[in-house]
Structures are given as structure tokens and as C-alpha cells.
């Protein structure tokens, strides 16, 4: 099953990536697309930009590991994960996850699983640039909880048994 995984500094075009994933395919019946976008304010205070640091090599490896896990848990016909690094201005995209399947359930579940794990396991760190200076974003317990629930959740195959 093909997977497209890219880390890049420049913005991406979610519509073009979706078209590339589905082009020439008549087996795909559902594509779930998640785009994470840089907000213009954090906790009510305006921000100038986000700066994303990453661990080259490990970031790719960690995304590949989770894409492979998603492929083993759900019947996926295509996956795209693009994660940006560097300086990202409000309104710009940060991350894209596309999950394609023959039916919507697997595509929804895989996209959510991948995002929950990207948040807590992929080595990226956000720093907020604002008028008051630069501050590192703190990890949220709610993100850990969101990733943790997939440990208990039955996969499509378990559920079918």
C-alpha cells in the first residue's frame, strides 16, 4: 500500500495532495483529510508565528512506524502525511494527514489515530513567537489521553471477529 511521507519547510496544498492520492484509482471510496493550521492567537493573545523544531531522521522514522501501524489496523488504500518545520505564520498549514479506504470508517479512524500519535510521539516542538518574546508550547495532557485510548480501542479486524 503506497504511503507518502514528507517533512518540508514550505507550505503544502491539501487539495493537490488529495488529488494526487486518488488519481487513477477506482478502488478508493473515502478519503479523510485533516489539516492542522497555525492559529493567530494562543490563550487569547495574538501570536506572530510558530517556529517548529524537529529531530531529522527520527521524525520520519516515527511517522513511518505509525503509518505502518495504521496500515495493519485498518484497511487503507493510501496514506499521506506531510509535516512542516521552520517558521509558520498564522493561517498557514502545519500538518496534513490523508487516509484513503474503500469505506469511511477505516479512513476516519486511521486519520484520527495518526494525528493523535503525531501530537505525542513524533519529535516536533512548537515555539510561539509573540510580542512578549518566544515561548515553548507545553504538551497537553489531553493529547496524551487522546493517544492513549488507541491502545485499548479494538482494530477493525478485532471488531470483526
Amino acid at each position, binding site marked *: 500500500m503506497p504511503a507518502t511521507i514528507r517533512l518540508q519547510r514550505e507550505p503544502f496544498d491539501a487539495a493537490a495532495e488529495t488529488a494526487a492520492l486518488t488519481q487513477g484509482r477506482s478502488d478508493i471510496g473515502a478519503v479523510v483529510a485533516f489539516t492542522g493550521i497555525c492559529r493567530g492567537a494562543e490563550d487569547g493573545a495574538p501570536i506572530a508565528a510558530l517556529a517548529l*523544531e524537529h*529531530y531529522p531522521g527520527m*521524525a520520519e522514522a516515527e511517522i513511518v512506524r505509525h503509518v505502518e501501524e495504521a496500515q495493519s489496523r485498518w484497511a487503507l488504500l493510501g496514506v499521506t502525511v506531510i509535516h512542516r518545520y521552520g517558521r509558520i505564520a498564522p493561517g498557514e498549514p502545519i500538518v496534513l494527514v490523508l487516509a484513503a479506504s474503500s469505506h469511511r470508517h477505516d479512513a476516519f479512524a486511521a486519520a484520527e489515530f495518526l494525528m493523535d500519535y*503525531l501530537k505525542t510521539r513524533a519529535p516536533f516542538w512548537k515555539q510561539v513567537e509573540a510580542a512578549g518574546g518566544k515561548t515553548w508550547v*507545553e504538551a497537553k495532557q489531553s493529547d496524551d489521553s487522546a493517544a492513549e485510548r488507541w491502545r485499548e480501542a479494538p482494530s477493525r479486524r478485532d471488531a470483526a471477529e
Partner: protein
Amino acid sequence: MKLLYFAWVRERVGKPQEDVELPAGVATVGDLMAWLAKRGDEYAHAFENPKIIRAAIDRAHVRPDTAIAGAREIAFFPPMTGG
């Protein structure tokens, strides 16, 4: 052994990476953090709360009790905030 630091761990240590010679007795990731914390004020600051620092050996997440024997590259960083 090559050590890498990211985000505020990197800022506090003051460098993104370094090569170190480890003394005998530094066997686990947790031992290594304790050893690093004694290398100077900047390291003490970076590793003042080792419970919240995450580590990776050769680009895979590990726990503090993981043995470091045979590791080529060990990275220390705060909890991740990507996505």
C-alpha cells in the same frame, strides 16, 4: 557517544549536540541524565526535572531504565508538541 538536544533542552544546555566519553557506571538513560546534570550549571538547569525529559536511542523512543550499551546516538528533549 553522540548526544543530541532539542527545544528547551538544547537551549539550556547551550548546544545542539556533542560527543562525550562516558565513565563506567553510566548504564541506563536515567544514569546518563544524572551524570549530565552534574556537568555544569547549564546541564543542571536542563536536567533539573528528569521525569519530564524524553529520550531516544538511535531515533526510537526509550524509557529511563533502558540500557545505553551499544547506542550510537542518544537524544534528550521535552514532551513533543507537533501535529
